């Protein structure tokens, strides 16, 4: 398979996956998302060995590493600030209302979830760093 055909299939697959996930989420049919994602991964795993030319090399790995590091930094900083703001707004909302209204409670839950997500990402990063340090 030529690289252009592979890229075209990849493009169509991403479009189909996005449409499928969007449709599944909006209609509340989560089975679509559960099936679509593994199916797309399997199709890619089957197609990749059929491509004759080199599709990724050391430069693409280095670029991916830099992009991942940048995305990690942006996500962690943004999510940490956003979670603090949400929790603070949730507490203030609760204080102002005398009791915890729905919006304030939702903000507190969202903020707490976000801060847990940041902690989880940090944990995964740490594990990955240790694993890769031992390899090289």
């Amino acid at each position: 398979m030529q690289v252009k055909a592979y890229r075209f299939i990849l493009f169509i697959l991403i479009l189909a996956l996005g449409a499928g996930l969007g449709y599944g989420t909006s209609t509340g049919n989560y089975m679509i998302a559960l099936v679509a994602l593994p199916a797309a991964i399997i199709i890619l795993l089957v197609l990749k060995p059929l491509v004759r030319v080199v599709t990724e090399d050391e430069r693409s790995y280095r670029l991916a590493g830099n992009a991942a590091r940048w995305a990690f930094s942006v996500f962690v900083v943004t999510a940490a600030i956003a979670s603090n703001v949400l929790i603070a707004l949730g507490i203030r909302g609760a204080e102002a209302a005398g009791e915890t209204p729905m919006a304030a409670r939702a903000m507190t839950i969202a903020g707490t979830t976000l801060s847990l997500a940041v902690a989880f990402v940090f944990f995964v990063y740490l594990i990955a760093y240790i694993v890769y340090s031992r390899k090289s």
Partner: protein
Amino acid sequence: MKTHTITNRIKVWRAEYDLTQQDLADKVGVTRQTINALEKGKYIPSLELAFKIARLFDASIEEVFHYPD
């Protein structure tokens, strides 16, 4: 720390061997974009890739890549 830019003569060697960027990329197992980035000085290769390129041209690394003093 003062950094130096590693320059290379890949384009010259490629012309000498009458190879296109795609030919060279296929022979050393990278993408054409990587060869293009190397020739433009935008990307510094790994030691392994530098050796592969130098050996393909039957030259030493110093004959292909130059690290200023």
